[in-house]
């Protein structure tokens, strides 16, 4: 019985699919791990009246977190009102959003409007 019967073929195929599904699940888990790593990478530090990095590329669905390291309050406000604005962040306070649809999003600090930044969201 080295050859697969049609029935066996179906079973084998289902097995393969479920294995694929499992690996897909495992991959999702990996992505979750990558997510938490990448959420570290998706950190924007506010220091000396600047967003650093000024431009960040993230995948749709990933989190982006700003941390204010200045002694001045700063805000994060979407220029085109594409995401909810932050309240004023005091020193060491953070603000997190989840990246939405792919595209380019510009934002600024409404308290110090010279401070601007860009988020590029790509497909996950």
């Amino acid at each position, binding site marked *: 019985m080295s050859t697969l019967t049609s029935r066996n073929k179906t079973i084998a195929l289902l097995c393969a699919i479920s294995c694929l599904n499992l690996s897909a699940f495992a991959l999702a888990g990996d992505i979750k791990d990558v997510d938490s790593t990448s959420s570290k990478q998706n950190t924007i530090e506010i220091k000396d009246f600047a967003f650093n990095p000024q431009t960040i590329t993230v995948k749709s669905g990933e989190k982006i977190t700003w941390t204010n390291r*200045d002694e001045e*309050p700063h805000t994060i406000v979407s220029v085109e009102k594409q995401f909810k604005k932050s*309240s004023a962040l005091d020193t060491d306070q953070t603000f997190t959003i989840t990246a939405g649809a792919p595209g380019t999003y510009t*934002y600024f600090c409404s*308290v*110090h*409007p010279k401070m*601007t930044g860009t988020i590029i969201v790509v497909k996950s």
Partner: protein
Amino acid sequence: MSDYISHDHEHDGIDRRGFLQCMAWAGTGLLWTVSGGVLASKTLAQIAKAGEPLPATDLSFLQISDSHIGFNKDANKDVTATFKIALDRINAMPTPPSFLIHTGDITQLSKPEEFDTFDEVLKSCRTKDVFYVPGEHDVLNDGGKLYRERYLKRVEAKGSGWYSFNKNGVHFIGLVNVLDLQAGGLGQLGDEQLEWLEADVKDLGTSTPIVVFAHIPLWAVYPQWGWGTSDSERALGYLKRFGSVTVLNGHIHQVLQKVEGNVTFHTAMSTAFPQPAPGTAPSPGPLKVPAEKLRSLLGLTSVQYKQGKTALAVVDSNLS
């Protein structure tokens, strides 16, 4: 570094060296008189020692600025105490000012309890009449609603809180340039306020002395740090025909002065903490100085007007 005086289009003789000298004097308590674009000075200590009272004037008022109640970082861990010292200085003046002008940043984070503390401490001031304009720190999360509810009760404010009033023949204009700021931009007055301003001064005679006060400087002090107002030129255009215009600002926590034609621009010290001179640090922000030096960099500004004289005398004194 030299950028902040590059807008001296009038070639009025205030060169960079002279300008920096002015800055150096500013922290030492100095009587500024401005007449025909010529600055003259005399220290407050000299006046006090000689027993000379300040010249009799028809109106004197005082500018305080940037009290930042609620700030508690290294640059000044007790801004309420230094604000109180500023009020003590006002209470000790032989002739109390007619009123105070606060040019914004009453609080650090627009919190109700910070406004409460400010109001409570202010009760100790003998001078009760206070006119306000907001700083960006006073309008952080609510577009200035709380600020307007508290500080505009005694004026007929329009729009987001601008107004004018007359005292002893001087026309005072309080402007708001810290709201609806645009990405990449500076302080902003906006069309509605500018149209109001044009109408407000339209029927005034050119000999009426004008005092304009707003938080962010109405001249390009240092645009790289946001120290300027994008549409201030238009506002100043409406004021060009007047013989005497005095513009009082805060925001930059240091004394800078510029004379352009009949317009004198002046920024005040903070009562909370100093900031670096334009371009001398990676960014603006609270400047840490040795504790014993702090009060020499904080202060208030007295302005005196005598009828018949074109120029107003602007006197800065520190809290040392």
